């Protein structure tokens, strides 16, 4: 059945294309304008499909085909391999910062023409991802916080500092992210004990941070890669403390689970995702329209309310109330991950990290 319909479609397409070449190609193109957009699968994708994409199509006439990404990294591998063969599994994808940098090194991202992103003026500067030569590789899509989370049944009082991870009383109670490039624990260590992430500028500094971090090891019960694995354990109190996503924890708490998310006094880790356009994509025009649309303060506010992400635009430009803003963010100065390290020193860091947790 499928083969038939594909055949018919190609035949039809070929016929139409022939006719169009004679007459008015622009009209035809406008009719089948569509865009494949990659967003994280599961809850994220569901929310986007429900709250964002239909309105976009209504506003612009561009149909969205959403594609579920498992993680930024796995998706990056797929995009890269496909782009080498001139294919784009998705035109625009939501990518993590580290993945953005890796993609930059192979020119995977089509530079974004900021002149066509009218709403970019609202963006916070740190959410514009640039090639070393200044071209724009990606534009901030959403941001989120990784915070200190606890099970309220086990910890009656919320911890106040990341130092809780180092507290011998918490032996075998922590769930931490398993990868150096998504747990950002080096930055946390540097900010908590070494006066700031600048301490990581030198290799000595990084090694010192590793040494300090090694002290956490006895407290760690689970190094998790897949969020749900920890979330489940946190909810049940099996693993009562750890690092986790502020938004998801908030949702779980709202559902009545005994969990809480705390912004430690050193700040939560603010991570973010960018919209980036694969170089193999032909839909440059549509992509710009889409990215511009997503930069609107109103859309960012909707995302905060519906998806639970923190806005990438200046807070003043949105109509978020204090309460709504507090639910997705904090006024405490965040820890901004040192993404650059994960590109320039990635193999070394990864080796050290793996040896730290596995060894």
């Amino acid at each position, binding site marked *: 059945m499928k083969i038939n319909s594909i055949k018919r479609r190609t035949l039809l397409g070929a016929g139409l294309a022939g006719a169009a070449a004679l007459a008015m190609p622009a009209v035809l193109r406008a009719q089948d304008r569509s865009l494949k957009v990659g967003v994280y699968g*599961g809850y994220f994708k569901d929310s986007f499909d429900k709250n964002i994409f239909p309105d976009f199509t209504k506003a612009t006439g561009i149909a969205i085909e959403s594609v*579920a990404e*498992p993680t930024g990294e796995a998706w990056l591998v797929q995009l890269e*391999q*496909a782009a080498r063969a001139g294919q784009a599994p998705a035109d625009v994808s939501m990518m993590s910062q580290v993945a953005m940098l890796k993609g930059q090194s192979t020119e995977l991202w089509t530079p974004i023409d900021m002149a066509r992103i009218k709403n970019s003026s609202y963006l916070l500067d740190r959410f514009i991802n640039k090639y070393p030569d200044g071209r724009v590789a990606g534009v901030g899509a959403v941001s989120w916080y990784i915070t200190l989370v606890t099970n309220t049944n086990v910890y009656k009082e919320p911890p106040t500092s990341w130092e809780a991870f180092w507290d011998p009383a918490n032996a075998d109670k922590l769930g931490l992210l398993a990868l150096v490039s998504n747990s950002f624990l080096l930055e946390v260590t540097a900010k908590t004990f070494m006066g700031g992430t600048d301490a990581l500028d030198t290799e000595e500094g990084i090694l010192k941070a590793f040494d300090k971090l090694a002290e956490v090891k006895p407290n760690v019960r689970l190094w998790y890669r*897949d969020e749900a694995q920890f*979330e489940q354990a946190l909810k049940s109190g099996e693993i009562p403390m750890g690092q986790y996503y502020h938004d*998801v924890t908030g949702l779980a708490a709202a*559902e009545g689970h005994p969990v809480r998310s705390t912004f430690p006094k050193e700040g939560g880790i603010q991570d973010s995702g960018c919209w980036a356009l694969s170089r193999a994509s032909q839909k440059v025009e549509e992509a710009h329209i889409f990215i511009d649309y997503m930069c609107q303060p109103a859309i960012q506010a909707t995302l905060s309310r519906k998806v639970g992400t923190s806005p990438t635009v200046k807070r003043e430009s949105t109509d978020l109330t204090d309460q709504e803003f507090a639910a997705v963010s904090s006024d405490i100065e965040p820890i901004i991950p040192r993404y650059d390290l994960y590109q320039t020193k990635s193999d070394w860091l990864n080796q050290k990290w793996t040896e730290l947790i596995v060894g």
Partner: protein
Amino acid sequence: MTAFFRNFYFFVIALFLALPLIVVAGVSVNQKQTLAFPPEGFSTSWYGEIFLNPEWRNALVASVTLALFSAALAVAIALPLAWFLWRRVAPWANIFQLLGVAPFTLPPVITALGMLTFWATAGFYGQPWTAVVSHAIFFVTLPLVTLSLGFTSIDRSLVEAAATMGADERTIFRTVVLPLILPYIVSGYAFAFVLSLNEYIVAYMTVGFTMETLPIKIFNALRYGYTPTMASVTILFVATAAVIFGLVARFGDLPKLLGAMASDGK
């Protein structure tokens, strides 16, 4: 005493096999969207979800379709190969036997990445049938092994007898070899089918962005939140498998399909 020992041993194995199923079954009837065990409240709505939620339904259909076709292709590759190796003296052809066994020995992620690169380069990346081919190659080992086993159990004099009675090569294959090897085809197919149904990484790397199979969906759940639906799908799968194999056992000779000789053969 020995009978008691044996029964105890069987009971322990049964318990071992059943424990995870009990957990999964318990989780699947949770009232709220949480994976609590023991379950909190009781609801069968997560079973309805499989069919009512188009995403789960599509994933189910995609997985079953993929498994049906890829297992068939795996058998189609393995059968002539196993037959040729049984029928002919061609030591060099054993290289293909080795090639048929090799995909299974590779770490799945490597097969997956190899396939990803290959399909992207070939320009078919993302086409549903590429997953069928990839799975067929990945799991060809299973029918190849069962069929090789099956061929060794065929008495060659049966083939000679058919030849003396006037059957040419093709006729022999159709009237003698095929009926005798059929049980092994079925079991090889069944193995490949079941494994394909549960395979994640190869399916994800080849067609993950155009179609979502159940394992991909379950994996996404692992990453973006468990839902009792994955437990209910699992129970549904187990139940379906039990029904299918139960029917096979009811109308066929299951022990024989799994490699036992006909009960009255010897």
